[in-house]
C-alpha cells in the first residue's frame, strides 16, 4: 500500500473516497449501458454519463488528492477537464450524424423496403430507430 496515504488529513480523504466511489460507479454504469441497450441511438447516451460525471468526479478527486499530498495548489487536471468538456460534444455530434447518414444511405439502397413504411412520415428521419439490429 502507498505509505503517503497515511499523511492525508481527514478533510481531504473523505471527499476523495466519496468522489472516487461515485466516479467508479458512474463509469461502470456507462459501460454497462454500452453493452445492455438495444439500439445504437440509445447506446450513444451511455458513454455520455461516463464522460461528464465519471471523468469530472475522478478528476476532482485527483485534484484534491495531489493538493493535500504536496500541500500546494495542484490544479493542472483542470486542463483535462476543459479539454474533455470541449471535445466530448463534438465527438457525440459527429458520431450521431455519421450514424444518421449511414442509415439514410442504407435505406436509399433498398427503396422497396422503405416504400411500405409510409406510415412513419411524422418521424424526423424516414428510418426506424427502434428495430433490433
Amino acid at each position: 500500500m502507498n505509505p503517503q496515504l497515511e499523511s492525508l488529513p481527514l478533510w481531504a480523504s473523505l471527499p476523495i473516497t466519496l468522489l472516487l466511489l461515485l466516479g467508479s460507479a458512474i463509469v461502470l454504469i456507462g459501460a454497462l449501458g454500452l453493452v445492455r441497450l438495444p439500439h445504437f441511438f440509445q447506446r450513444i447516451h451511455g458513454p455520455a454519463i461516463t464522460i461528464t460525471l465519471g471523468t469530472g468526479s475522478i478528476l476532482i478527486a485527483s485534484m484534491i488528492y495531489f493538493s493535500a499530498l504536496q500541500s500546494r495548489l495542484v490544479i493542472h487536471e483542470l486542463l483535462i477537464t476543459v479539454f474533455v468538456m470541449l471535445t466530448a460534444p463534438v465527438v457525440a455530434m459527429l458520431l450521431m450524424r455519421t450514424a444518421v447518414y449511414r442509415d439514410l444511405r442504407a435505406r436509399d439502397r433498398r427503396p422497396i423496403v422503405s416504400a411500405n413504411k409510409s406510415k412513419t412520415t411524422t418521424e424526423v428521419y424516414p428510418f426506424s430507430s427502434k428495430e433490433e439490429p
Partner: protein
Amino acid sequence: MTTLLSLAINITLLSVLLAMLLCTVRLLRGPTAQDRVLALDTLWMCAMLFALALGIRFGSVIYFEAAMLIALTGFVSTIALTKFLMRGEVIE
C-alpha cells in the same frame, strides 16, 4: 479512514478495468461500424481514467501527462474515424 481510502482507490481501478472490458465486448460484437467507433471512444476515455487512478494509487504526477496524451490522441482518432465513416475520406 486510510484503509477506506485505499479500498476506494482499488475499487476505482477494478471498476474502470471492468468498464474497459465491457467496452471491448461491444467493440468486438458491435453490429455496425459506428458501434465499434463509439466503443473505441469510450475505451480511450476509460484508459485516460485508468491512468489518472494509477496516478492516485502510486501518488505520482507523471501519470497526468499520460492521461492528457491519451485524451488528445483519443479525440483525434475518433474524429478521423467518424469522418472516414461519413464520407469515405478523412481530409476533404
